[in-house]
Each structure stands twice: as structure tokens, then as C-alpha cells.
């Protein structure tokens, strides 16, 4: 069974007098361990799809199941609980809490789980080690570079051992060197930890690290062959 199942999902937005339909009766399966890139021109619904799979937005039609849980039937509170236990979200602009250190930012998701403090500490340290930032644990976001902030964001996304990690343009605000580091990191996490990833990007280069590429246009998907080995 697929980890993520979208069935007949549609989403509409009203923009003044106009109705925009970024997703129109979309059906999609994503299997465990896959690294899927969503690509397409601006405004074609890539981020919308990501938000629906994350449970931070609701479809107007259709159902979304992640690991057997139908997100569309959950209340706002239950969706939050589900996200805490099952989802990691990597934002384009990092979105770290500025008054918390790197360690504390990564620790945040673990505070929502029933973990002992020792277990929590272990997970945070492992997550920071995985992204290579153990030596920056007590730094505040303002003391980190853009690339380092994004790595903290990635650590935060994986610390709770989520079933799926979604990334919305994870390299969108980074320079070329930092972007490459992040790409490598995401590829490594997918391969070594078998983390299922759903990533939105408009960059072909970034999309090349994924095992599956979907082009979204006019509310429909087209799958393109991946060149990743």
C-alpha cells in the first residue's frame, strides 16, 4: 500500500471574481522511501499539494490518506497531533524561532511527543549530528548562515522520526554552494534513513536528486523520468 494516497483531490481559490483551480481531481500515490519532486511553473499548485499532504490546508474535494490516516476527516487539533508524530516540514525561509537556539529549535517537535528528557536529548543530538551542526547547537539563528539555518530546519524536520518529510523550495533562498550542501544532505537522509520525501522545487538541478519527478500543470500531473542513480 502507498504511504501517501491522494484520491480525486481538488482545490479551488477565489481571487476577486476569478476562480483558480490549481488542483483538479488529482490522484497520486507515493510509496515509502520515495523521494518525489513536484515541479512546474509558478502558481500551478505545487505548494498547494504540499500543504494538503501536510494537513495545513484542506481540499475542496477528494481524500488524502497518509500511512492509513485520512487527513480530511481530522479536526484541526487532531491534525496538529498527527503532524507532530508523522510529518516533518522544511520551509523555504527556514522559519526558525529567533529567540531559541539551534538546539532548542530542533528540540521543539520532540516536546510534543511523550519522550523522556534523556531520549529527547539523544534525538536532538543525533539530528544535529546528521546535519553536521553539533558545534553550533547553542547558537541563535541570527548567528548562523543561511545554509546553516536551513540545516537546522532540516534537523527539526527529522528529529521526531516522521513518516514523511515535505520540503517547500528548500534551497530557494540559498546561494549555489549552500544549495548544493542541502541537496546532498537531503539525498543522504533519504538514502541512509529511508525517509520518504516530497519536495517542491522549480530548479531542475535540485529535482535531479529525487527518484521521481512530477510536473504539475493546469491541475494535472505528468511524470517525467528521473535521472538519479
Amino acid at each position, binding site marked *: 500500500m502507498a504511504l501517501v494516497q491522494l484520491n480525486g483531490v481538488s482545490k479551488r481559490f477565489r481571487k476577486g471574481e476569478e476562480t483558480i483551480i490549481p488542483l483538479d481531481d488529482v490522484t497520486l500515490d507515493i510509496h515509502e522511501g520515495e523521494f518525489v519532486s513536484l515541479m512546474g511553473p509558478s502558481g500551478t499548485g505545487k505548494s498547494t499539494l504540499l*500543504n494538503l499532504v*501536510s494537513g*495545513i*490546508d484542506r481540499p475542496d474535494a477528494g481524500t488524502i490518506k497518509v500511512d492509513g490516516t485520512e487527513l480530511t476527516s481530522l479536526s*484541526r*487539533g487532531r491534525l*496538529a*497531533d*498527527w*503532524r*507532530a*508524530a508523522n*510529518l516533518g*516540514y522544511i*520551509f523555504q525561509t527556514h*522559519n526558525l*524561532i529567533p529567540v531559541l537556539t539551534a538546539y532548542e529549535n530542533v528540540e*521543539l*517537535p520532540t516536546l*510534543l511527543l511523550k519522550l523522556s528528557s534523556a531520549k529527547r536529548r539523544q534525538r536532538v543530538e543525533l539530528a544535529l549530528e546528521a546535519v553536521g551542526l553539533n558545534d553550533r547547537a547553542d547558537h541563535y539563528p541570527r548567528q548562523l548562515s543561511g545554509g546553516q539555518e536551513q540545516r537546522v530546519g532540516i534537523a*527539526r524536520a527529522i528529529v*521526531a522520526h516522521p513518516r514523511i518529510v515535505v520540503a517547500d523550495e528548500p534551497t530557494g533562498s540559498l546561494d549555489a554552494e549552500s544549495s548544493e550542501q542541502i541537496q546532498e544532505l537531503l539525498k543522504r537522509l533519504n538514502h541512509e534513513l529511508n525517509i520518504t520525501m516530497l519536495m517542491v522545487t522549480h530548479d531542475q538541478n535540485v529535482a535531479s536528486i529525487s527518484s521521481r519527478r512530477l510536473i504539475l500543470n493546469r491541475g494535472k500531473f505528468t511524470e517525467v523520468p528521473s535521472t538519479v542513480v
Partner: protein
Amino acid sequence: MLTVSGAAVAMFVFCFVGAVQEGLQRLTTGIDADRCLIVFQENRFCPTSSRLPEDYARQILDVHGVRDVIPIQVWTNNCRASLDIVVFNGADPDQIRRNRPLQLTAGSWENFSDRRDAAIVGRNVAQRRGLNIGDQFSIGNVSVKVTGIFSSTVPSEENLIYTSLAFLQYTRGVDAAGLVTQHEVRLTEEADPDQVASEIDKVLRSGPVATTTRRKGAFQASTLSDLVDLIGFAHWLGYACVGLVLSLVATTTVMSVQDRIQEYAVLQTIGVRPMRIMRLVLAESSLLCLVGGVSGTLLATVVLAFGGFAIGAEGATIAFRPSLSLVLTGTGISLLLGLIAGITPGIQAATVPIVAALRQE
């Protein structure tokens, strides 16, 4: 910082108004106010206008239910409302010592009894006028030697200066030989105050001067009736302060939530429940209000404790003093206001459309 200091100032004023009202309540209620009667000249209001025969005391003592009678001559520098009122009570030193809840913090009762122009001064007056033992204090035609400074469990007492009855009666300008302003009547435990009051007036009706006898609390409330009305109006000032704190903290919280709406959306994306977000906002607004409110309350407490403030009129004074109930009320109201101020922004933060909030810069 501005919000905290604004809340502090508003709660400072609130506590001050509260202290005034508590002072009035202390004066007009309680055991002393209820179990003690004041015999005053009928249809007179200002102490200078009430002149009762001193020997009325013997007749009053014969009334059933009366335990003791203290003839008192009252002299004040200002019959009108004033923050710097000086009130002299002239009475027998032994009776003062026996009946008044006074503790000498400096000086001695013996010196007070031995000297005709001796005076014991309430702590508030001593502080306000800078008086010490041995000082000669003169005001109007009255000139006394300070032989004692006292404190009292009844705050209004600390605004008085006690002298011997004879001294005040024979002071130039007072010229009240054989006369007193009022008789203070102490009752036995089982006596009905109103019944005894009525009996006293009946007994004294045949005398040279008709009297009105009332419970001390009622007498003081009547004496201070103008001030009572003003103090009642000041109640609204207290409410205005509460409203000010609420609007200050609510505005700050709303602005803070607006500024950090993206952060709240990130927290919800990570998996923080909406109710928890709301509790975060409520905690923030409560803390803000509590810090400001408690600071203002404590500052008011200190100022009231050491400032010796009082207001008086026609020989009666209201002391402004801090109290535990004032501190607790100030703290409780600060906490409650903080919670109320946080409700709407809390709901806003908890129910924000996550996607739209994440897109905000």
C-alpha cells in the same frame, strides 16, 4: 516596557483609590465604629461649633449600657477638606491610655501626664511635620511640647495629636472652659448601641444643650459626607484604571500576535495544537500584565506605608494605608486583566489560516 510601565502606573492609581476607600470603610465600620457612640451638639457639624457641658459625662455614665465616657475637646486647623489637616484631641491622659489603641514608639506616658502642654503625636503627623520628641509644635494659637509619638492599629488615629483636656479647653481662641466638643461613649458588651444612643439624647434633652448621639461610624460618615461622595466618585477612577490596563495590554498583545503570526503558523505546522497556541498567548499577556500590575501595586504599598497620607474634614480623618487585601486585589486583578486581554489575540493566533500566515513576510 511601555506597556508594563503603563500597567504599573494604572495599578498604582487603582491601589491608591482602593486605599482611600479602604480607609473610609475602616473608619465607618468595625468594632470601634459600632461599639462606640459620639455625643455631639444637635444640629452642629464642625468641631468648633459643638460645645457641650463637660459634666454631661456624669449623666451619660448613669445610662444603662454605658461603660465609660471620655469628654473630648477637638481643635482642627482646617474645618474644610484638606490633605494636611492637623487635629488635636484633648482628653484625660489616663482615659486616652486606657481606651485608645495606641502604642508609644517614642517618649513616655508619664511625661505626657505630668506636663500640661504635653502632646503625643500620631506617627503620620510626626512624619508629615517632621516632629520629634522634645520639639515645640505650634499651629494657630495652640503650642505643644511633643512628649511622645505613637502608632496605632487604627490607621486614622495616627493622624491625631492628643493633649490634655484642660490644656485645649483653656487655649486662647478655643476658650472652652468647662466645655467639650463631644463625649465619646464606650458601651458594655451586651448594650444595644442605638438604644443607648436614644436614651442618652433623652436624658440630656432637659440640659442646657440638646445632643445628637450616634454610633461612631455613622458619626464619622456623616462628618465626612462630602468626602464620602467624592471618594465614591473616585471609585470610577479605579475602574478607569482597570480599563486602561486592559486596553494597554490587549493592544500590545494584539500587535505582538500580528507581528509573530507567521511564528504561530510555524508552530502549528510543527504540530503544536491550537489550544496550546492560545495558552501561549494568554501566558504572555498575563505575564505582561502581572509584571506591570504587581510592580504598581507594590510601589503603591510602599508609598502608602511610608508616605503617611491622610485626608480630613471637620476634625475627622481618613488614613490611606496599604493592606494585604489591597495587594491581593491588585495582583488578582492584574492576572485577570492579563487573561482577558489575551483572549481575542489568543483565538486569532490559534485559528489563523496556516498557509496564509506562512506566506506573510
